[in-house]
């Protein structure tokens, strides 16, 4: 009877040990499954295209700038771009200054903030 009892106790002890190890490994395993999530999220969330579009808009806006009243035109473009980007849930603006030789771009989303002053002399933004 005694030996049976002893074996049972050892069994219980080993069971406890193994289960502890399995639990901790399973936690690690769960983390391992998550690996790659941040990368893919970043790839998906980074507003590359929105910013590119804003740059393209700057080029188009400068090319289409009228020979006179560019201040008024600049103000209109600024308002339109703000409205356009607000519909995407982000902030974007485009300020044409120095008679079109400079364009200031601003973009703010939850994760990314961007600002650039572009040289647009000769009607081409660089």
């Amino acid at each position: 009877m005694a030996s049976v009892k002893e074996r049972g106790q050892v069994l219980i002890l080993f069971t406890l040990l193994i289960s502890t190890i399995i639990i901790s490994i399973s936690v690690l395993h769960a983390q391992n499954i998550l690996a790659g999530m941040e990368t893919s999220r970043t790839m998906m969330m980074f507003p590359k295209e929105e910013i590119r579009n804003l740059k393209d808009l700057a080029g188009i806006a400068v090319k289409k700038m009228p020979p006179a009243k560019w201040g008024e035109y600049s103000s209109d473009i600024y308002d339109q771009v703000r409205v356009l980007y607000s519909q995407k849930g982000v902030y974007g603006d485009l300020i044409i200054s120095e008679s079109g030789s400079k364009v200031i771009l601003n973009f703010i989303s939850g994760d990314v903030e961007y600002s650039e002053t572009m040289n647009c002399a000769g009607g081409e933004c660089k």
Partner: protein
Amino acid sequence: MRSGDNRGVSMMVEYLILLGILSVFVAVAALSLEDTLRKSQVSKVVDNQFSDVASQISAQVVDMATLYPSNGYLRAKVYMPSSIGDIKYIVGFEERGGKRYIFISSDRGEFRKYLSLGAFANLKFENISGITHSLKEKHELLFTSASIIYPTAVLKVRPSAIISGSNVTIDVSESYSPVDWWWVVKSWNGSELASGDMSVTKKEIGIYWSSDIETLCKYNSSTESAVCELRLEVYDSRGFTADDTEEILIAKKVGVEPELYIKKFASPETIQVGQPFELHIRMVGRGFVVEETRQNLSVVTVVDKSGSMHAGNVNEAHEERTKFGEFMYSLNPNVVSVNVGVQKGKPVYIVVYTNQSMPFWSYSQTENLPSGISPDDAFTLYVNGQPAPKTTTRYSWRAPSYGGVNFECVNGELTQTNGICYETTPGTTETWNLSVVVSNPESIQLNILVFERESSRNYNYRLLLSNQTQYNPNYAIHNFKFDPGYTSNDRYEFAYVFIPKNYGEKVNAWIKNLNTGRFSFCRDYTDVGGKVCFVQNVPAGQNVSVYIVPSKIDASYVAGSLWMEKLDAAKIAAIKFIRESLNETDYKGLVDFSTCANTYEVNSSSPYLRNLTTDSNAVVDKIKNIVAGGWTNYIEALEHAKRVLTENVTLIKGTKPLVILLSDGMPTCRNVSSGSTYCSFGKYTCSDTACNPDDCGGEVIPKADELKNTKIGDEYIDICTIGFGEKSYYNETILRAVSGRHTSSGVVECYYPAETLDQLIDAFYSIGRIYKIAATNVSLVDTIPVNLSLYLYPEVQPELTVNGNANCSLNWTFVNGSTLVNVNCSEIYIDDEIELVLTLVTNEFGGGFVTVNEGGKITFTDINGQQRAIDLPMLRLELKEAKGAEVKIS
């Protein structure tokens, strides 16, 4: 003990021993299993997670490189678990062996991972750095890049040709840097000539001949002259530098022919893709303004001496005068201030006075005081900051007395002494502040007395306050004087000082009459809207003082202008022209005109040429004595000028004939009622005193054309006109049409408007410079190639600046993607500066150099009639990528 008990103890011990052995075994097994099962798994998980975080950062860096704002920033959040398992870690950028990595390391260092960023990181980013810990609340990547604005150096030296020992002006004002900058100009041998910081951009220095000029400069032994290069170096606080060079002609003597100096430069010389830059092409007429440089002139100065050139009194001077100066002073009136306690309902009688005489307000000692004015008008009292009205009247039997003086008051002014009085009844019991300003340019003893009465019916006064102080006024004195040598007996007709009403109502002013030694009061005139100080027959060379004394507490500033008679101004300008712009070998003549014209005989030594002389003094003496009066007979003036120039064409053959006509009014004509007093050739009549502009044009312009078509030797007569005074007074259209200067490109206008004395002197000076030609038929052709674009916007256009008398035009055309720029100048005169500024932008990308305009050329005819061509230098501009692009993790 029973055997059963013994067995039980034995089993117990056995059990404990066995359990102990088992426990040790389990512990050893557990440790081994932890190591084999858990840690190996943890390392894999950490490796995977580190890869994830590194990949995320790498992906963002790639995105940033893709967007790459060349002049701006991009900030992106980085997400990472605060721990992996229970391992905390740090993330950062590291450079190893020339390669850039993202590294992640557990904070104890047992796990470490590197992820290469590839070659693009080295190419795209100047710097990549930073570190962050996983436990930080937020993590971000920051990309920054800035377009660097490089400094620009532009050196201009004026004049461009000098005799050794003369001064030149070093002008670096067009140099630029967005930060603090300094400059130094070095001579041909590297020694420092001038230096300064950004606040001092012009300096005058002397240039001297030195022995090294012959070796270091382009030396011409036949003319003993050399073209030397001065170098400007600009340094800014960022450590960037820029430089520019400018040529200067240094000669030991004046026998150097005028020529054209050409300079081409870009500003800035280092640019970035898309950044506009300026291309400057500068042409300067380089030479000496001396007789050797030009043909002699025969100049007839025709001066309008009609009645409007003269003003015999102040009312006429309001209309006919010429400004010759301005002044402005800040004022700080001396204010005496006292406080006094007053009681509600008890009338307060305030007296401000002096027992001293005030000669500036005395009719016997000061001129031009208006009737009704008295020394009492010098005093102004303020009660609690408000000016006390001068309405109080208190006759002597009810007025208070103090110190033997009865303070009788009529309309706010004391009758027994100099001062003012004011009575009012306080509405409340309080402390009043009394302030006094006395507008008197001399120090006086000032008394302030405050009396109180019990009631309005009670005339027993109780003295509340007695204050005595020495009042020293703060006032401005403006001194000016007329130059001697320009008018008859060195006397000027009048001096007229005008102080506009906004200043004049807060001051009193006096002007010193040098003839009487007394001061003259400056009166207010509503028709001119201000205060006028006026003295006549003013001797030249002596200071005329104007005292401006504040009369109001808030007089803080005064500005005004100085005026003289129009004829006096015309005399100064004409004499300066003859003395300073004409050479000793030039012939000079003088015609003046009003109702009739008058030719002056200036050459008594020659029976063959009486009306022209090379003796400047002979003409100057005549000009000094011109007296104004009469109408404005243009046609006769022109006829007289023609007669002067055609008196003896043989003697003046080879000279360039020139008529300078100065007039301040519209041409008049023979009025039917004026009868025979009006001198005129031809049918020059009309029914009014001033002719209709078209009628006048119909008469005057053909007469002017007759002159312009008259040849003296091989030279046609030129006419330059000056419209003097307010434009509405004279007929600018006629003066423009009358003028005409014969150039290689035809007859061009030679008209100058002048309102002030300085403008009139400049007009004469400009006419003088016209005949100092450095080059003619100048044509500049430059082609902007396809790799550059002409930057065209409403506000930014190709710009041609002409500083001087050159007559130039600019045009540009687009041909097969290139732009052809063309500047034509019929003449360029000595010291003229013509600058063409084109704003260009490069279409090329990347580093390297951009070639700016090959094949540009300037052709011109030099003063010897030789056709010359100069190739414009080709410039190479350094094209740089945006610098300072960097990524930082934090």
